[in-house]
């Protein structure tokens, strides 16, 4: 999950929910979370994107 999030944020500075879902479900097999924490992961990626954008603007 962390590696995929990093890879996504390196190519998309401000990913949409659809882009995040695509990133975590495409490829050979989807990234699975049995606890169902997907919403938290989506929010975390977006939060990271916002922070990283702010940092690069500063």
């Amino acid at each position, binding site marked *: 999950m962390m590696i995929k999030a990093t890879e996504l944020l390196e190519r998309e500075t401000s990913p949409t929910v659809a882009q995040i*879902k695509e990133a975590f479900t495409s490829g050979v097999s989807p990234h699975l979370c*049995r606890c169902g*924490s997907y919403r938290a992961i989506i929010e975390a990626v977006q939060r990271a994107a916002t922070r990283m954008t702010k940092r690069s603007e500063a």
Partner: protein
Amino acid sequence: MIANEEQMASKTTDVFGASLSRRGFVKSGGALMVGFGLVKADGMQKTAAGSGNTLNPALPESWIEIHADNTVLIRVGKPDFGQGTVFTAYRQIAAEELRVPFEAITTVVSGDTDRTPDGSGAFDFLQGGMPNIRKAGAYVYQALLDLGSQHLGVPKDQLSVKDGVVSGGSKSVSYGDLVKNQKLNLTIPVKGDVNSMFGLTVDGNPPLKPVSEYTVVGKSFPNSVTVSKVTAKEKWVTDVRVPGMLHARVVHPKTLGSKLVSAGALDKGRFPNTQLVVKGNLVGVVAPTEWEAIKAARQVASDTKWTDWKGLPGDQRLFQFLREDADWKSAPVATSKTSKGDIASAIANSSKKLSATYQLPFLKHAPIGPTMAVADVRSDGTVYVYTHTQNPQALRTGIAHMLNTSVGHVVVRTFAGPGHYGRSNGGNAGAEDEAVILSQAVGKPVRVQWMRPDDFQWSTQSSAAYSDVQIGVDEKGNLTAFQIDHYMPAMQDDRLVGAVLAGLPTIPSPNQKGSLFGIANSTHDPWIYDGTPTLLERAHGTFQVGEKSSPLTVGLRDHSMRTPGQYQQNFPRELAITEAAVLGGRDPLQFRIQHAREKRAIAVLESVREASGWRTSSKGASGSSGVRQGQGVAAMFRSGTYWACVADISVDMSSGVIKVEKMTISVDPGIVVNPSQLKRQIEGGSVMGVSMALLEELRFDESGVATSDWRSYPIATMADVPEIKIVLINRPEVGKYGQGSEAANALAAPAIAGAFLDATGKVARRLPLKPEYVQSLLKA
């Protein structure tokens, strides 16, 4: 001075049934430690040291430690399973009772049998488990008040405490200064058995902090463990390595009833440093490296002979088997306390009637990581097990029983790992006992890692179930009668499966005499529609499927999983309630409100109606093609908490694909301890519930489990995640902590099936709602 010290050392103060004593003085540091004394039946106390309990009441298993630097340490037997409850809610509850800031509790030790006092497992954290840390905190607070009173020379009732500082008579002293240079011990009364599934319970009634004065509970403190996990600093169970450790794979039997005919010979030319271990029907391969263990196990497996066995009905015949062949007569039938009235005549006299059957398949807990453990059976007879289990003390008891040794010889240490969702709440996740058996055989520490197919085949399942429902409705559309008969095989098999295969002692299976839980079913789903004039709820139990005919006594072993039993009973009930509303031409949500009497139940339903934007008219579009929208509702009372859920779905009328667009959940747990943690747990539960409702079903043939990977047992991906809206209803006046998370799993299926009825006019009474099944309903 020495005499004085001795005098002080011998002094013991009674603190609401606990006893505070000074064990001596130290030059630096100092602390107040909390041990315990077991309460005997006659109410007399004795210390744990003399009780046969292996924990020392003083050190190092102190429940709570107050340190001279004003920091606090808490220890809890329940291990964290990702919920973060021991690191958030438990700290908050302890901080509240102790009157210290949340941040003052700097260390939380949990889940190791030799480092925590009370045992029990990762379940029922806030309702059943919470009183321990709350009461232990309350005893310590009273002890600190006594110390403060002595120190300041001010009567106890004239003292106040804020942020760990005791004040009174214009003087004040911190907790740290009260314990400085001293060895203080508080022995608190407990009852129960630390080695049992439910562990020790703190006894007595120390004064608890009034809920109205709470300042820490109710705030969203972050889970301290998240950072270490995100930054890869957390030590996971898969990271555990001990000196001299070897790697193992187990060659499991060919079927769930196959006995060993002959183990394949190990190719010593290819694997010179690998050992083959055969014990009963357990075949293990132990190697210096993991890859060699995998390769050698494959080589041995290819040449290992097993007997054949076909003792299962197969998934296609499961419900026919359960209805026609299973023995429902050997277990007593449980009837709910809320059952009332003459149901047969009430149904006979109803203007509209409905009779239907609902079916739920076997499910897998399906942890993301297959089970693994490291065991070290030492030459002196002590056994260390490093693993990830929901109940370390129960596992320790099981391991000791298997080895015919005392629990004092066994230590279980736990580490972070994948969620188990109930599978290991009786101790065993799968690999631990196999690691112990192999370690004992080779005389070295051994790490056993199951492969994915092992985990699907040899772990327990969540029980399949079916329910028969009969409903009567009058001319006005009100319920006149509701009868529901629930049928479910036993669901708490805590036997160590490696021990079963090896022919070593285990506790009885639910099928066998002396089992703690047995095969009896019970009415798990509390009735919340008290306005119904006649009601009959019954629960019927039977044996685990296939176990009796399996020469291994294995078959389909079952185990509790998220909202166990209640999930199997709430789906039929809630879908039937929706059907009853539709039968009488009523709105399913308003129908529920009108039949409920408890105001907290009504309030969650009203809340979810508003939050979801509930539409009272039928939501399905006309026509048989295209995509239709639907809304459905479900409600539940579980472990002190009221729940209501609305699912918004779309149904593709040609493909039969159901998509859950939105889940809205209103929850009233009484006191909300940590809103953001609760919200996250509900989100996760909702997604798992959607997964169970739409995708999950154990496929099995006559010999065993036919699913072996995520393709044959699909679970929800991020693409399946709906919009989730959660409304938390905080009711401090209830004065209790209700359970917060797992019920969310169970709400999804009946709400989604209700939405499907709304969208299409068709009733889906069998889970999961896969496209082929949905298509067959749409064509009918």
